[in-house]
């Protein structure tokens, strides 16, 4: 590309010859050195994520091995396993961890069960025009503030609220504030995050495959189980990562609709704020970190991270 042997030909074709600007020289160097190109692409993002995020996470984990001086309230940097002993043997922590994981799993299952038919309708049944409207309809609630939506559910579920007003003629009543309210509200909040990847996954399942399956005599149920589900699995797991992890760390919705119930997020939050015990909070935070690392490792095997 740098030689001028072909330049008379190029000039006759009306293409100006290359100028030897610094940008051109860098470009020539980079197109000859793939590793340099890779290095240039990776350095900025890796520096950012490594310096900011990994250092911060590592520092947090180190803090979990420290303690707080009960007189001064200052963090003392003597190494101790006390925080971990407290977290792993305390009955409160075990109960809260189980409750949190249970709620996160339930929210994820509810969201997947609701998202599957909707995503299927959007991707395979609706006309292109209706599909565009439905995508907008699913995306739009994401722009309404998370807090406002959680608060709207508080108002809907309250005594004398909309739900009771709707149900009371049939003898029903609102579940009030508590674990059912937490599950309803969290499922509601994360539903678009689950619908979108499943919808994108379904769009990638070609219609021709479905037709081939039916031509070969498979009924709808068989096609769904043998063709659609295996192709869709990574997208479902990708969606579940959002609903699961977002539920695992939530404490604000829990405060708004959860009554007196506490999740792991609340324990971390109280220890950072009111109790001023960052080391204990860091030790509690290792629980969701460990759960998510296991979850992500399992998810990566299924290829889900590719379709997140």
């Amino acid at each position, binding site marked *: 590309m740098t030689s001028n042997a072909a330049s008379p030909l190029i000039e006759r074709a009306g293409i100006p010859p290359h100028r030897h600007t610094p940008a051109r020289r860098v470009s020539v160097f980079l197109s000859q050195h793939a590793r340099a190109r890779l290095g240039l692409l990776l350095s900025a*993002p890796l520096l950012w*994520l490594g310096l*900011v995020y990994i250092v911060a996470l590592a520092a947090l984990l180190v803090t979990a091995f420290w303690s707080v001086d009960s007189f001064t309230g200052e963090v003392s940097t003597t190494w101790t396993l006390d925080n971990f002993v407290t977290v792993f043997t305390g009955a409160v922590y075990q109960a809260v961890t189980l409750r949190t994981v249970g709620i996160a799993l339930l929210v994820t299952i509810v969201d997947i069960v609701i998202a599957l*038919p909707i995503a299927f309708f959007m991707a395979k*049944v609706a006309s292109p025009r209706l599909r565009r409207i439905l995508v907008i309809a699913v995306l739009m609630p994401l722009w309404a503030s998370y807090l406002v939506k959680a608060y709207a559910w508080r108002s809907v579920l309250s005594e004398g*609220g909309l739900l009771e007003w709707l149900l009371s003629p049939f003898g029903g009543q609102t579940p009030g504030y508590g674990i059912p309210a937490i599950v309803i509200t969290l499922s509601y909040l994360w539903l678009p995050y689950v619908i979108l990847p499943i919808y994108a996954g379904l769009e990638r399942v070609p219609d021709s495959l479905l037709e081939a399956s039916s031509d070969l005599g498979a009924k709808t149920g068989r096609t769904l189980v043998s063709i659609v589900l295996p192709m869709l699995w990574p997208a479902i797991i990708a969606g579940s990562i959002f609903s699961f992890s977002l539920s*695992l760390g939530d404490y604000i919705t829990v405060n708004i609709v959860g009554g007196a119930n506490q999740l792991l997020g609340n324990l971390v939050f109280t220890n*950072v704020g009111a109790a001023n015990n960052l080391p204990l909070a860091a030790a509690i935070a290792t629980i969701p970190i460990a759960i998510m690392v296991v979850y992500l490792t399992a998810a990566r095997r299924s290829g889900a991270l590719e379709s997140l």
Partner: protein
Amino acid sequence: MRLSRTARISLGVVTGVVLAIVYLPLLVVFVNSFSTSKNLTWPPPGFTLEWWGKAFQNAGAMEAIGTSVQIAVVSTAIALVLGTLISLALQRFTFFGRDAVSLLVILPIALPGIVTGIALNNFFRTIIDVQLGFVTIVIAHSTFCIVTVFNNVIARLRRTGTSLEEASADLGAGIWTTFRLVTFPQIRSALLAGGLLAFALSFDEIIVTTFTAGPGMSTLPIWILNNLFRPNQAPIVNVIAVVLVLVSIVPIYFAQRLAGAESAQK
């Protein structure tokens, strides 16, 4: 697979019912923004435009919206650059530690917000000792926004392949020209979709923001959290939520149209 008419209709009905439930709380917010009741009793006792008038004169809310927009714009810009770089690196090269890098991008969104929040808070205050404020929020938001850009761009790069770029190089274009005239136009709508999600994510984030904002800063979600439980402010919060949803139709609609136009060309 040929769905029966009944199956198609029932799928449509399920979709309709769920969307109705999705919009029900938003409808409650909308109705309450005109309600004369200050603590959102149902059914609303009367109609008033008082809150709509007051909302636009509320200096705190307007200032918080301004701050949130600035933070979201800067964070989205940083995320667009970093997300594009990292997706080009991961899609076009194989190298040692590639899996680890892709996990690293996802980690800030996959770990619960409160973990990211206290980790960054601890990092900013005790390790590098900076004042919490605009810059620290932007750093935190960019970190977890990278993944939305990354996902959209890498999916696009996987689909488009490298043949056009190779053709461009064969015709004598340098890498900058190739990026400007070949790669960038191919990923433009993916950047728009990813950027839009990044903006929305940053604009609405509350948990990480709480830990990185410092005392003087108020983004819109922080302002909302501080005012949601005050009787005189709750209806104003409803007005602002309604306006945001309505305003959001515009960018989503254009992103959809752009994506639709591009897929029609192919």
